[in-house]
């Protein structure tokens, strides 16, 4: 058991934080899977427009690893397959039936889970087409079922802005969660590591058994699983570590205990553009329109699937990403202040981790999509280092990636990193450099290089 104390980082005080209540919405009518949520995957369709699918039927598979397939998060009819550039599959949209059918597997008794063994567990998750919920470090991509991971890490704490409060979302789900943990335990000799916030009172987390429990305290990115791995037992070369989202542990638990794929998930609808920021009970890949109609302050917004730091832009008619559990809405703003850069600034107009403005209140801030500056060459005033709680030199790493110096990139620990851990660096950077995407560029280079 490790207690992690994170000092470097920052909790962005963005307005529109979700309350710990469920916002009641009707059942969604369409769901989708967007193959571009999965990096390094070459999707090949198994269905065509008009086909009938059940919850859990395979929609497509990966040409690189054909035994990995993707389960349909809904039962109904394939309404559309949207193709993008060079016929890449953008979106598989499913119209849901009133009464959805589900593929049923034989359930396993809780007591029997721990005697299943790795190969049976792997086969069952693959058969249920749910393998994509298991991802690996390095590269933060879908795990290879043939690998023998050193350990499996689960973060039971979301620190990203406006994200789901896991204490709230996992409440009263102890038995399913525990079953999921026991299943995952079979997959790695190193066992499962579960980290949660030190002052949590969620019994689902605190009373978890058969796993290594860790606690963490401190600002974002303390909830990022990559940061937790770095502080508990950092990645070493030639090994893989698997990671699973806490809510997906429930999905796995249900799959074994009940024998069905339950695609439901708790998400948040939040941000400065939302009238009633709250949690919602929805499902993976749900259409967003129902949650957003009549719930926005104005028309000109950016709708993001995911949190404001790492999410993808979508629209009111868009869909929740496969791994996303936050829908963030921030207004677009064209406001331009006359001689703004000479003004001292106050807490309503400026937000900064530095003290460059007279905005010292601890109130929440109505962020917009304004970049607040233009791209400039790097002027290293230490802003990146102050929000990166890792034993890594972000500056040096950034330059080694631009120089494509492979040895240096690896030596500086690139393979221990993921772009989400560097999102705050981009947020604070006065030169407005997108550090995270450079980290991803480096990871892609390393991956292509083998």
């Amino acid at each position, binding site marked *: 058991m490790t207690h992690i104390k994170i000092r470097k980082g920052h909790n962005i005080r963005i307005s529109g934080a979700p309350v710990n209540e469920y916002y009641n919405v009707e059942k969604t009518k369409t769901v989708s899977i967007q193959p571009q949520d999965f990096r390094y995957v070459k999707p090949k369709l198994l269905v065509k427009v008009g086909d009938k699918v059940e919850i859990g039927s395979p929609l497509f598979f990966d040409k690189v690893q054909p035994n990995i397939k993707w389960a349909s998060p809904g039962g109904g009819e394939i309404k559309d397959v949207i193709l993008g550039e060079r016929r890449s599959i953008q979106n598989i949209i499913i119209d849901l039936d009133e009464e959805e059918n589900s593929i049923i597997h034989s359930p396993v008794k809780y007591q029997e889970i721990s005697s299943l063994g790795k190969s049976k567990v792997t086969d069952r998750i693959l058969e249920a087409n749910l393998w994509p919920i298991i991802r690996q470090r390095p590269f933060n991509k879908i795990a290879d079922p043939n690998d023998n991971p050193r350990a499996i890490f689960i973060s039971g704490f979301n620190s990203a802005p406006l994200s789901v409060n896991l204490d709230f979302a996992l409440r009263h789900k102890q038995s399913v969660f525990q079953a999921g943990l026991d299943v995952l335990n079979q997959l790695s000799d190193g066992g499962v590591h579960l980290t949660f916030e030190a002052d949590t009172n969620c019994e689902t987390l605190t009373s978890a058994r058969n796993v290594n429990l860790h606690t963490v305290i401190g600002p974002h990115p303390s909830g990022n699983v990559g940061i937790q791995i770095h502080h508990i037992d950092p990645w070493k070369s030639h090994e893989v570590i698997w990671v699973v989202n806490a809510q997906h542990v429930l999905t796995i638990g249900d799959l074994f205990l009940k024998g069905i794929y339950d695609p439901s998930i708790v998400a948040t609808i939040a941000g400065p553009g939302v009238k009633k920021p709250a949690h919602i009970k929805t499902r993976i890949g749900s259409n967003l329109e129902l949650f957003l109609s009549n719930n926005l302050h104005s028309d000109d917004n950016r709708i993001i699937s995911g949190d404001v730091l790492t999410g993808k832009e979508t629209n009111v008619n868009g869909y929740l990403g496969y791994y996303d559990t936050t829908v963030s809405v921030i207004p677009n703003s064209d406001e331009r202040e006359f001689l703004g850069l000479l003004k001292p600034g106050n807490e309503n107009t400026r937000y900064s981790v530095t003290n460059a403005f007279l905005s010292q209140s601890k109130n929440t801030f109505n962020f917009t999509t304004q970049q607040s*500056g233009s791209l400039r060459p790097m002027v290293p005033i230490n802003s990146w280092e102050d929000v990166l709680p890792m034993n890594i030199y972000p500056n*040096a790493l950034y330059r080694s990636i631009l120089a494509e110096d492979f040895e240096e990139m690896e030596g500086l620990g690139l393979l221990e990193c993921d772009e989400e851990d560097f999102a705050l660096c981009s947020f604070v950077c006065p030169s407005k450099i*997108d550090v995270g995407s450079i980290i991803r560029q480096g990871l892609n280079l390393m991956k292509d290089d083998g």
Partner: protein
Amino acid sequence: MVNALRKLIQNIEPKFMDGGLFQKFYPIFEATESFLFSTSKKTTSGPHIRDSVDIKRVMILVVLALIPCYIFGAINIGVQSGIALGKERTLFDNFIFGMGYIIPIILVTFIAGGFWEVLFAVIRKHDIYEGFLVTCALIPLLMPPTIPLWQVFVATSFGIVIGKEIFGGVGYNIFNPALVTRAFIYFAYPTSIAGDKVWLVAPDGYSGATALSIPAATENSNALDLLNNVNQFDFSWINMVMGYVPGSIGETNKIIILLGAIFLVYVKIASWRTMLGATLGLFFTAILTNILAPFSSNTMLSLPPHYHLVMGSFMFGVAFMATEPVTSSHTNRGKWIYGFLIGSLTVIIRSINPAYPEGIMLAILLMNAFAPLIDYFVVQKNINQRKLRYAK
């Protein structure tokens, strides 16, 4: 008024866009527009929201921190020339008198600096970078009030082009361009700026030795006794802190510099590690030279550390130039070493080499050159630790 201006800018914008008459001069348009109305750019990649600080703000704050140095600098020019002429003026008269010397230097610096920045921005087709504002705000403060303006023009051009632009502009330069400017004058026109004789706005023939050159020029003596025996100027410690001594325009008042340094640390632009490291380096080395002083005929060795601290441009250099983020060490650990060596080298150059009474400029330039090497070792240590861990 503001709306009319906004409209005017919107109307002329197409002329500067692709295909417009002044397409080549888009950087000038962009700089003016974003200065007046801040940028309208929205986030496209990466985080959808961003911190309000940008490089413009960073640079403006540094310039803001320098303004008190200008005000006191102007007053001090008047005071010092008053002493030379035997005249008493009011504070305001002194300020106006000094400004008469400072404003032409500022104008020449900004004309030269702005010209090169715009030229390179137009040729390289990038925005006008704000870094030149700080460089041009620093240069006049490093100059003696009596500097010939053509030398300022030539040196600023040299500093901006050779010190910065040939490396690729802001963010890529190795040496602090303002210091390159000063070093250029120092070596090309030493009679204007060498630092052994005082620079005063005074009648021809009026001259005197600077505080640093007095102990440097005399052998087998005690530095403090020498300074206390100067009648021409008050070289007491407290007066050197208060800044009423001859010197370059911006460097004399240490209290104003200290406040500027605290401000820059508070707004998280300058590194306190560099500043503290440099001060420690200065004290450490000065104490060492004090211990060695009895065994040498070099009087400078006997100068106590707290005098080193307030004499010459040490504090100004450390607060505003050593901390320049691009040319300093980039790692936190590196900043300690980088700062310490600047402080240490300053004392060594001042004490050991009587030809250069002031050491801070050369110390910073030298350490600018070595900063990447320091970072290399700091980073390499991290790499080696990781290699060890991976090997386990």
